């Protein structure tokens, strides 16, 4: 790909994010779009990155707003937010 990826809101997570992004983008193009894999193959890099993000979020002032948004419109409700008015 060679494209520059965007940084993380937490500078300390940017390296982990770039590694994960690289893996994901490759998987998305080479496997997912080809219908070759529905398994996300970047699990280890993901764990690394998301742990960093969650640690950074815990003390960030965005946390209460994010919690509220996730409560009103959960990620895991299986449906994109149609209810929001």
């Amino acid at each position: 790909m060679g494209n520059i990826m965007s940084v993380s809101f937490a500078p300390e997570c940017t390296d982990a994010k770039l590694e994960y992004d690289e893996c994901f983008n490759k998987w998305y193009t080479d496997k997912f779009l080809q219908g070759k894999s529905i398994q996300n193959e970047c699990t280890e890099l993901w764990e690394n990155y998301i742990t960093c993000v969650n640690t950074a979020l815990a003390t960030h002032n965005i946390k209460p707003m994010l919690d509220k948004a996730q409560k009103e419109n959960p990620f895991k409700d299986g449906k994109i937010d149609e209810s929001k008015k």
Partner: protein
Amino acid sequence: MKLFESLHIFDYSWEQVTAANWQKYPNELSTHVVSVDILNREIDPVTNVLRTERLIACKQPIPSWLRALVGGDEFSYVREISEVDLAKKTLVMKSSNMTMSHLLLVNETVTYTPDSELPEGRTKFEQEAEITAFLSWSSICNRIEDWSVERFGQNATIGKKGFELVLNTLSQKLEQSEVLVKDVGTSILKEIDEVNDLTHELVNDVTVKTNSVLSQVQRLKGFWRN
């Protein structure tokens, strides 16, 4: 509530567009996007739909004086949930601002689908945004009132302290000599006048600032309305 809609055709396949979508930022035209994070990502075991939650930070598009007034951060944050459905060849992205959403809420939906005329080589981009402004005169005025009352309280305290100093000087001088009473009486009146002038000046200062903030808010409201 206002609705904004736009339509665009990209001369790239749906696969290319959706792959590029993950790498959209940074780009030279969207310099307001500061960071992008993935918060959740999963594949539905039944439908194979790839679902992603992202947190996007942007530079605040509003002037700093309004930010100071309504309370806000240097950055505004947008939450986005997207779904890639490979079977239906759709990418739907829904995003809402979290910052300042009590004042202005933007719910955006972007859909990428293969163009019906040239499904292998072109992609249709549809964008829809619901914009709701909760900015009411009363809420803005309340903020200004609170701020002004606070400012006025601070200034009034300064005024009172000044007056107390004068009173203190007066009583001391009264104790020192009865002869000086007349002179002191003249000078204290002068000093009281000065304190009054100072208070008036500060009240005026608050009024001028409030008016200028109000006129700027009015202009901005007009801008949002248009």
